[in-house]
């Protein structure tokens, strides 16, 4: 009996731990006073007022958010923005644990359906079956551009973001990798090594980033920049924490490299580069965020390029699409007959002043696109809004327009 009670107690503690681990965070502070800035001015329909929209929509919309890694810094930044929206609007977010398989993704979607979610916000997706499962369960689905052609006619598929205006196969990851390669060439780097993350293990996003990086290097070379890269010798596979990664970094840092491109969180290279005495001679370009991790490294020049997806700009349109669909204004999510793809711009940061401006704004709990801006893009709140206006609004948030 005693053993059974103790086992039950352990189970209870484990469950509490898990819930704490995957539950929503209230760490972000709502400002309610931020301005959508000059970018918003280019969109006439987009309002910069800070009206109280805490009771909008009338009925709470519950949204399941899929993530591949709940400790990933970009995801945590997005989570802060979504929590800010949830705090300032009548929304509720349910976050997944780290999804590492199609089964885990299906389980999350099923549990969202059981929990009464209205929609799935696919920050991450493993399989197209997940989209079908979401639709079959009567929930709306936003995200995953690669499968959009198969589902764009379905009313429950409410769109996604895109980085390209045409139907190019160069997706966001490819373009992110391209920026890494080209930017280092442009900055005068002569010899670069590339940390490819999961590319060698078949992880598609990393494969695309590597292809993009190599294309970026070729483009830089074609434009006359003298950057060298050999795809067989200048690559480090995998992630930190393994002996082979440590050994590979060591062998690269003893070489003549003056540039490093990293397809994941570059923070793990800062200390080894520092210890090797190369902090002044190596420039890092990374796909990363504007946060504490990069603050010092960007300001002291160790990191010279960050390819950054501003959370409210790139992903925020998903919340607009979901609210419009759930409140019965599905037509506002359609571009013609198909689900709309909102064109957004990725920001390539090379100037510390730009980095610091974004950092300071987010650090103060403020956003370029506020909760009231989001409400203004919803037909239930602003009956004259159209998909074209929403698309135009998000397109206006280029780095140059937004961060002065």
């Amino acid at each position, binding site marked *: 009996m005693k053993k059974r009670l103790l086992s039950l107690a352990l189970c209870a503690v484990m469950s509490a731990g*898990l819930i704490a681990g995957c539950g929503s965070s209230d760490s972000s502070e709502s400002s309610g006073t931020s301005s959508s800035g000059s970018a918003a001015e280019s969109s006439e329909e987009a309002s910069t007022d800070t009206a109280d929209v805490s009771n909008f929509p009338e009925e709470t919309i519950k949204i399941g958010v899929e993530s591949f890694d709940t*400790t990933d810094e970009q995801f945590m930044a997005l989570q802060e923005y979504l929590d800010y929206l949830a705090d300032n609007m009548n929304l509720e977010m349910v976050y997944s644990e780290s999804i590492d398989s199609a089964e885990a993704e299906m389980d999350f979607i099923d549990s969202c359906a059981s929990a009464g979610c209205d929609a799935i916000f696919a920050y991450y997706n493993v399989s197209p079956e997940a989209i079908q499962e979401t639709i079959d369960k009567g929930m709306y689905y936003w995200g995953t551009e690669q499968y959009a052609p198969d589902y764009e006619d379905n009313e429950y598929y409410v769109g996604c973001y895109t980085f390209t205006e045409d139907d190019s196969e160069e997706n966001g990851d490819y373009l992110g990798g391209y920026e890494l390669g080209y930017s280092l060439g442009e900055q005068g780097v002569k010899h670069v090594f590339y940390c490819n993350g999961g590319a060698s*293990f078949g992880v598609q996003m990393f494969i695309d980033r590597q292809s993009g990086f190599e294309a970026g290097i070729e483009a830089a070379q074609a434009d006359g920049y003298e950057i060298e890269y050999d795809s067989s010798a200048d690559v480090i596979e995998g992630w930190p924490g393994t002996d082979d990664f440590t050994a590979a970094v060591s062998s690269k840092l003893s070489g003549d490299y003056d540039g490093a491109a990293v397809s994941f969180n570059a923070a793990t290279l800062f200390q080894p580069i520092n*210890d090797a005495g190369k902090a002044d001679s190596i420039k890092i370009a990374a796909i990363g965020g504007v946060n504490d991790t990069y603050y010092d490294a960007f300001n002291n020049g160790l990191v010279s390029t960050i390819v950054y997806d501003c959370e409210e700009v790139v992903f925020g349109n998903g919340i607009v699409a979901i609210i419009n669909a759930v409140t019965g204004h599905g037509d506002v999510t359609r571009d013609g007959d198909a689900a709309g793809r909102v064109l957004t711009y990725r920001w390539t940061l090379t100037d510390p002043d730009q980095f610091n401006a974004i950092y300071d704004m987010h650090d103060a709990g403020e956003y370029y696109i506020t909760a009231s801006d989001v409400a203004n893009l919803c037909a239930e709140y602003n009956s004259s809004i159209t998909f074209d206006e929403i698309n135009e609004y998000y397109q206006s948030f280029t780095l140059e327009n937004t961060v002065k």
Partner: protein
Amino acid sequence: MNKIGKNIVMSLVIPVVVYLFFFILCNATGNAGFGVGSDLQTILYTSVYSGLIAMAMAINLSSGRFDFSIGATMVLAIIIGGNVAKDYNLGAVGLLIVTVLIGLALGAVSGLVYTVLGLPPMVVSLGLAMIYEAIGFIFNKSKGVKLMGKNDLLIFAKMPWIVIVIAVVLVVMVLLWDFTKFGYERKALATGQKIATDQGINEKKNAIICYIISGVLLGIAGCVYISKYGTVSPETGLSSSSYFMTAFLPMFIGGAIAKYSSQPIGIYIGAITQAFITSGLSWLGFSSSAMTVMNGVIVMAFLVYTSNSHILVEQKMFKEKLEKARATREAKEAKEG
């Protein structure tokens, strides 16, 4: 050659042969950086880090307790210890002390939960790994610990500290293993639990001490790791298990050569051997997947050897006996004839 000389040679033969093999191969292929200068420093770091984790794992595994929470314990200890040391400006020694104390406390919790519940260690450690991961995730708003650039704190992956750390650990571990009542009892329990407990050895007390020592070693490993990378992120979904995947080869090599020295020394020599292999393959341009395959093949080879080495001894013994019998018979026949 006397016994001590033979033991030294037998203990060092594997790493020396591996080093020479890769040194010659790397130099022959134009990769002269292997095993010298900064690469040697990396090999030292890798061997200390892997060696500490392998020792932490072996202390329980040799008694049949597979501890799945090893990675989670290390990550949680360094996340809490690192943040406390940073926030209170405790310095490098403070970082080590706080992290080790937290590792010790987590080890004690693991040991107590295991002995009180009496459930299979795999089940208990799986549950604890999830709890430790979740706590590490919640702590510091999921940001883990970031000490990049704080060079006054991050000294344990550099000379001479890394050598001091491993030397102290090895001395203490050898004393604990081979010269204390705890060590004798641990060995007795590992080789025959029923007989040992019938003799009056307290198995639960011994297990708790093993978990505590394991926690301390993981706290030290956490300090070495963060001194190398400057940052540790929380892990979720049992992904902390990746931290102990490099512990197996040192553990098996250690098991094979422990008879020539001591198990902790054997494990550390195994870790050095593994570091040579990893670094050598890296200089030769092997991919990460190929290295994983090589690592697996070597682990398998060692398992095959250690599981069947008694057959060689038996064959040798039978051969000697047979020769002795033949000689006796021949002598007898000669005498009669």
